């Protein structure tokens, strides 16, 4: 018997957007397993050509919600580089599973890690170009953080461009860039397979279980259709739990690999979902911190400290040009109460505090109680 949600959704027919990336899986599975239907929603999933299109269409109401880059939601909420609208994050969709790839040409010049990249760039033989997927997005923040941790100033020492995920590999092959940060399957897996580059780091090696994509919508939508928002969270949470059962991952890879979804060979997707990693320099390993979609709800709970961290980075790189109250903005955007209510009713653990201190790979502690001090201690910034 299907348990009925406490109250019927105010709006049942939904158009939800996604980008062709492995981490859209919980939305696809919620649909393919009939979970949206189970909770009274008739959902059409609509693949989007760019993050800009995702932002605009959520803003205009052409999409009711979408698979979105964490930082992009905050960028749209603050009007950074484009239109401003009050945004809402309903839940996290995944942790981990992105990576930074450097070109074969850099490898031939002796680059194998961040330190050797820094030495090459310091010789100033030419200019170097690195790509991310969207100026306020997660890949931009991972790339900048990683470069800066090695002493490379992403705004002054290299040239940065934004390229949509499915085009990364082609652009690298064409020699348009020296490195990029993107999510699977367009990250390490494809680049190594095609022999155009190597994976210099995974993002989970930079920040174990880091926040990445979220289910985003506008605040107006949440206020108008709270039951619909709850039903979406419920369906996606159930799908997330399904995906994190390892035995289901082959099926997940086949389903999302389809042309209408990610449009990549299931085997390329499945390997990384199983945690099988290689770096293209001869190292192969079983990754413990592979892409997670549930992790007993830890992935999905919209920690305020995660929103705050992205705000500190938007500020760090000069994208956010004025001081804001980090905690207050995160409270506006992250729908902690709505999510927690649904999670509890499904016996999914909810943490005691929405603030969590975490340490990144450079040893620097992110303490959400002290965002200003955190920002101050970075030597490289805008």
């Amino acid at each position, binding site marked *: 018997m299907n348990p009925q949600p406490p109250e019927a959704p105010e709006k049942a027919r939904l158009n939800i957007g996604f980008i062709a990336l492995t981490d859209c899986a919980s939305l696809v599975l919620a649909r393919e397993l009939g979970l949206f239907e189970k909770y009274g929603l008739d959902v059409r999933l609509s693949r989007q*050509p*760019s*993050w*800009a*299109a995702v932002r*605009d*269409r959520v*803003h*205009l109401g*052409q999409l009711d919600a979408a698979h979105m880059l964490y930082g992009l939601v905050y960028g749209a909420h603050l009007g*950074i*580089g*484009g*239109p401003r609208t009050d945004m809402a994050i309903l839940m996290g969709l995944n942790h981990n599973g992105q990576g930074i790839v450097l070109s074969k040409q850099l490898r031939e010049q002796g680059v194998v890690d961040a330190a050797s990249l820094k030495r090459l760039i310091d010789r100033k033989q030419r200019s170097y170009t690195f790509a*991310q*997927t*969207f*100026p*306020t997005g997660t890949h931009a923040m991972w790339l900048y953080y990683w470069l800066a941790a090695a002493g490379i100033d992403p705004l002054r020492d290299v040239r*940065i*461009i*934004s*390229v*949509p995920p*499915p*085009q990364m590999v082609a652009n690298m092959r064409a020699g*348009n860039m020296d490195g990029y940060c993107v999510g699977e399957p367009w990250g390490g897996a494809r680049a190594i397979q095609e022999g155009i580059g190597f994976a210099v780091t995974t993002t989970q090696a930079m920040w174990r279980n880091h926040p990445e994509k979220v289910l985003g919508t506008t605040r107006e939508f949440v206020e108008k259709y709270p039951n619909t928002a709850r039903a979406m969270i419920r369906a996606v949470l159930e799908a997330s739990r399904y995906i994190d059962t390892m035995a289901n991952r082959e099926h997940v890879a086949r389903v999302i690999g389809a042309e209408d979804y990610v449009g990549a060979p299931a085997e390329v997707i499945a390997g990384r979902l199983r945690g099988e990693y290689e770096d293209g320099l001869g190292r192969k390993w079983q990754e413990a911190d592979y892409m997670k979609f549930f992790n007993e709800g830890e992935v999905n709970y919209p920690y305020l400290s995660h929103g705050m961290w992205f705000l500190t980075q938007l500020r760090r790189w000069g*994208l956010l040009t004025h001081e804001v109250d980090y905690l207050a903005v995160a409270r506006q955007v992250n729908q902690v109460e709505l999510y927690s209510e649904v999670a509890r009713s499904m016996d999914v653990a909810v943490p005691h505090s929405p603030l969590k201190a975490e340490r990144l790979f450079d040893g620097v502690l992110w303490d959400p109680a002290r965002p200003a001090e955190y920002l101050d201690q970075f030597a490289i910034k805008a």
Partner: protein
Amino acid sequence: MPARVLIIDAQSERTQPLAQALAEAGFEVAGIVAESDDVHGAVRSLQPDAILIDADSPSRDTLEGLAVLGKRFPRPILMLSESADTDLVRDAARLGISTYAVDGISPALVRSLVEVTMAHFQSQRSLTMELREAQQALQDRRLIDKAKYRLVEEMHMSEEQAYHQLRRMAMERGMKIAELARLLIEHGAAG
């Protein structure tokens, strides 16, 4: 000085007439580049005041990357100051046109740019729509015929009986005849 507009579009059959319409309306077309070209380099070297781009172009994210670099780069425009203009830009987005403009360019100029482009795209679109409707009608016809002959063969009906049967079943289910025909073909006559 006229506002300089860059058009990013791979479909030259619609881009050339658009460029002409913009020139007639007093805009200077700074360039036309295909999506596969170096969009980043083109925007940097041509320094347009405004950019028109297909809303479905993946290159939009490259423009977004440039938009945060400073005031000389066009930023995405989703609405203008007056509410009527907001509707206009929304309609343009629905039609599949995205507009980017530098801060200095006046809302009136952006409005005029969007109006010219929309008028142009709408006439293009109505042609495409007519063609699509004709194709759909043809496809429906084929489906209905196929389902009809199946009923004729399996249920031993006359063609006319079969057609009436299809129509009755569709009405009972509140479906179009073509939809019902598709179901019959896919799942058999038993349902």
